[in-house]
């Protein structure tokens, strides 16, 4: 207890710095991955992507991110055996943050498709094993999380596949695809607003003092979807047929209908990412802050202070503006194959899956789900060429990230323990 009292401020400062470092890294690489499909399909510019990300990442973290933060803070480890040594948990969380952030730095500079989520989960487990003991890890929960890493990209891919098929049937394979696109466009926007808001509201938003019944959730989701559809309808109505572009590619005008719709999916994706991935940076930070502020209580139920969320948001936007900018440009020029309609399917599928996982408190990898969604579109024979080696790399990065995150966290844990006693 004295250690916390003596070094409390230093711990807080370290947590803030490491947390900023981590969220900066998330913004630099991860957000760019999440928004890449929108930028790549030409629906929004890089600048617009940054603005959208700034707003909706924060909104996602604030409105729907609580569950994941809680999981990372206290779902993976059982701290009951160290109630009398709260500093262990502080060292551990600091070590985990630093380990994950450094590993992310290394991996993204090498171009390995690692996941921020996997890094932080691996790091938390790593410190728990060496710092508390193997039994302190809630292996059941970890198993659930690991299973979600397999299930979520598959789910994202399946949704994308179904969406792609529906667009073909309802829009492309008709007498007048352009008219069909205009007719069904708002319906697809409604679908997006409805799904995202329903998933967000379904379990209620306790921390916002908003408890909705299932029926009310449905009602609000319908209203939200209708409002979005209205806005979408106005935007879509402005789209005109471009005969010269149609000569080259018959569906050019149809794709133009999907372009304004991609703006909505970009927002949804940023929201989804915020609800899931911001927690990776601020979860451990929140854990440290709550221990220090309560003077050493380990398992209390404090709510997430707003300033921590803001801090996470600032870190992400800074990362995006300083480094993510370039990453997004690379992605944008790399995936010209993703037309707005295909991008719409992939992004909506990914966003819905991520928000769904977040609401159940499962930290999933946005990048991997987005990759899964793109492959779903590919399975519908909708993408010219997908390099399957990326899947191989992802699997390898899974297998590597967990032990390396864990190992690094263990090293930092002992370093911190040595420094502070």
């Amino acid at each position: 207890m004295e250690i916390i009292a003596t070094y409390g401020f230093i711990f807080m400062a370290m947590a803030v710095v490491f947390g900023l470092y981590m969220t900066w890294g998330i913004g630099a690489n991860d957000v760019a991955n999440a928004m890449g499909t929108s930028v790549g399909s030409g629906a929004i510019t890089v600048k617009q992507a940054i603005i959208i990300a700034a707003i909706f990442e924060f909104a996602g973290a604030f409105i729907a991110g609580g569950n994941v933060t809680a999981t990372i803070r206290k779902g993976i480890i059982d701290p009951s055996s160290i109630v009398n040594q709260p500093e262990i948990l502080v060292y551990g969380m600091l070590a985990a943050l630093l380990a994950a952030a450094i590993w992310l730095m290394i991996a993204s500079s090498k171009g390995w498709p690692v996941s921020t989520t996997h890094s932080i989960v691996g790091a938390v487990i790593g410190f728990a094993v060496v710092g508390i003991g193997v039994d302190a890890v809630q292996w059941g929960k970890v198993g659930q999380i690991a299973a979600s890493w397999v299930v979520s990209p598959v789910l994202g891919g399946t949704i994308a596949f179904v969406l792609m098929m529906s667009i073909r049937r309802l829009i492309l394979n008709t007498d007048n695809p352009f008219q069909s696109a205009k007719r069904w466009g708002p319906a697809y926007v409604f679908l997006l607003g409805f799904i995202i808001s329903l998933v967000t509201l379904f379990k209620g938003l306790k921390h916002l003092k908003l408890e909705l019944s299932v029926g009310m959730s449905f009602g609000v989701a319908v209203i939200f979807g209708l409002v979005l559809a209205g806005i979408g309808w106005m935007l879509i109505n402005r789209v005109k047929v471009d005969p010269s572009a149609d000569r080259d590619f018959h569906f050019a005008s149809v794709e133009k209908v999907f372009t304004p719709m991609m703006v909505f999916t970009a927002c949804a994706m940023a929201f989804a990412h915020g609800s899931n991935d911001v927690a990776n940076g601020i979860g451990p930070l929140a854990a440290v802050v709550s221990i220090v502020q309560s003077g050493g209580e380990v398992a209390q139920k404090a709510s997430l202070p707003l300033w921590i969320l803001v801090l996470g948001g600032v870190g992400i936007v800074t990362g995006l503006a300083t480094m993510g900018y370039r990453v997004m440009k690379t992605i944008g020029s790399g995936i010209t194959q993703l037309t707005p309609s295909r991008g719409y399917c992939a992004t909506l599928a990914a966003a819905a899956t991520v928000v769904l996982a977040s609401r159940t408190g499962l930290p999933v990898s946005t990048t991997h789900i987005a990759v899964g969604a793109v492959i779903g579109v590919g399975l519908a024979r909708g993408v010219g060429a997908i390099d399957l080696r990326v899947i191989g790399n992802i699997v390898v990065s899974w297998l590597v990230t967990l032990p390396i995150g864990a190992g690094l966290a263990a090293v930092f844990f002992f370093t911190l323990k040595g420094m502070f006693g």
Partner: protein
Amino acid sequence: MSTTNPFANLFGKSPFKALQVHMRIVLECAREIPPLFDALAAGDQEAVVTLKNKIFEREAEADKIKNDLRGALPKSLFMPVDRRDLLEVLQMQDSIADTAQDIAGMLFERRMEIPAFMKEPMLALARRSVDACEQSAKIIEELDELVAMGFRGREATQVEEMVEKLNLIEDDTDDLGIELARHLFEHEDEMKPVSVMMWYQLIEWVGDLADYAEKVGDRLRLLIAR
């Protein structure tokens, strides 16, 4: 940071764009064949040389694209079509350019003089063969739409119809070729034996332009069916 981002890496270069670019160049080769016979009939050796050079240049260009595309199609690439079928289409397209080159080479190197009775029918055959190439190029231009539709539905039906039309054009070239060969054999006593053989070869080759064009369409049909 890095240029090797999982997302940028996920997307291989679409082979269909390259296939279309290749076909456009191949078509440029084929299109020069009727003017070549024209120039030959007019005795304009200068024009023959210019046209021949143009065909040779284009053929080399097509070869380069072909090789690049082949090199860019690793087995790990997941495509909406079978890799082997795709390479077959490419091969058939390339054969059109190769054949155009053979024709131009022969006309130039052997300083062929076109017998008066062959002028018109030869030109007709060449034009019809180029029609076949034009039609197959048109089909290849539909690849974007086919991908958008997942190689199904109306778009696939439309391409099927285009292939049918291509087959009809190719039938025409067969008839024209047989007719022309018959003409040639009627006049064979008036010509040098080697010339007769060479002209027969040329008739074959000009007909081959349409043959390969037809095969492009047929292979594309396989691509759709998978």
